[in-house]
């Protein structure tokens, strides 16, 4: 592993976007920051700015209202980046899949690298998914 790949692996900054989730997954994402799980020990930081983020963590189903916002956030995140869909809704639309305003999973709008199923996804599962995403991120090249 080169220096850059190692640095990428060791320093993932996460942008968390709630795409209309029920807040169940969001609370589990926040639980990852608490002393019990403490993701900062892997160098992960919770960023409020897409321009500083490496990992886009999306919860909730993509819908017509926020598809544009989701797409903008994805475009504002500089390469290399990975997208993690957290929760059943973000993976497939979940229990909202046949609502008139719901498009389905997040992958209907942006390309998703890792799917973390669960309703709500447990913090252990989220950390596992993010670490999987990191392996993809470390190998990615900067494009354009």
């Amino acid at each position, binding site marked *: 592993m080169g*220096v*850059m790949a*190692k*640095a*990428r692996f*060791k*320093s993932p900054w996460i942008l968390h976007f709630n795409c209309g989730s029920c807040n169940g997954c969001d609370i589990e994402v926040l639980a990852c920051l608490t*002393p019990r799980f*403490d993701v*900062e*020990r*892997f*160098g992960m930081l*919770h*960023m*409020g*700015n897409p*321009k*500083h983020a*490496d990992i886009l963590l999306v919860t909730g189903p993509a819908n017509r209202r926020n598809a544009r916002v989701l797409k903008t956030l994805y475009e*504002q995140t*500089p*390469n*290399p980046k990975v997208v993690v869909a957290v929760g059943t809704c973000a993976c497939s639309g979940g229990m909202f899949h046949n609502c008139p305003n719901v498009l389905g999973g997040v992958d209907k709008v942006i390309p998703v690298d890792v799917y973390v199923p669960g309703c709500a996804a447990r913090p252990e599962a989220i950390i596992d998914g993010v670490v999987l995403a990191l392996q993809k991120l470390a190998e990615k090249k*900067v*494009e*354009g």
Partner: protein
Amino acid sequence: MEWFLPFTSLILVVVAPFIGGILSGIDRKLTARIQNRIGPPIIQPFYDLIKLWGKESFIASNFQVLLAFSYMAFSVVAFSLLVLAQDLLLIVFVVSLADVCLVVGSFSGRSPYSYIGGRRELLQMLSCEPILILAVVGIYMVTKSFLVSSILKLSFPLIAALPAVFLALLIILPIEARKSPFDISASHHAHQEIVRGVFTEFSGPSLALIEFGHWFKLVFFLSLLTLFWAPNLWLGAVLAFIFYFIVMIIDNIFPRLTWKFMLKVVWIVGFILTISNIVAVALLGGG
């Protein structure tokens, strides 16, 4: 003494970013331990810097990149001038020039968060620059020169003549280090309040340059505190680090306050401390 000064200066300038990076790593570890977490490794800031350097660059204009570079360059120049024992007045102006570059850079994007961060950065400068200038005036009153080398030539430590000025500099240390309760422009801990303040519009390599410059600025300010203990520079350095650790703890136990409070505290307390010290030195005839 004279011939090895350039060599020691060069070594100090090369070592400074490592000290700055390790200090911010210790800061993150200490913060995590205070919150009963394990926390990232001490060398985490270096991983962050390398990663940022390898990211894609999103910029508003080429001028913005130049400004990010200037912030870094002026911070390095300020620290180099200090270790080469040059003019203190010039050093203070170079430091404020670095800050001005950051503010202008934050204005190059159209983001309102970046704008409000830039304005708050100006307020931070407004509160700490006069105190810095007055501190330099105090040093001039004692040494009869603006040169750092004249401080090193004094037979007694500067702190004996300017204790109140030193206290005033300690008050502005959290502002320079971007720590709570005065971390109003970058909002380091409550990320989502004004997103990332002045840094919002910088990303990838430009952010890496700014982070690198910030480490230099931190070490610069700690060296400025160290100068007050010359000729016992080692004692001064140890004390400067201890003061920085106290700032880290204060950062963790204090909420961030408003800019009005910052301006009031820094100006009222800072001006009273520095001016009373300068008047005392003038009355007692300069050390």
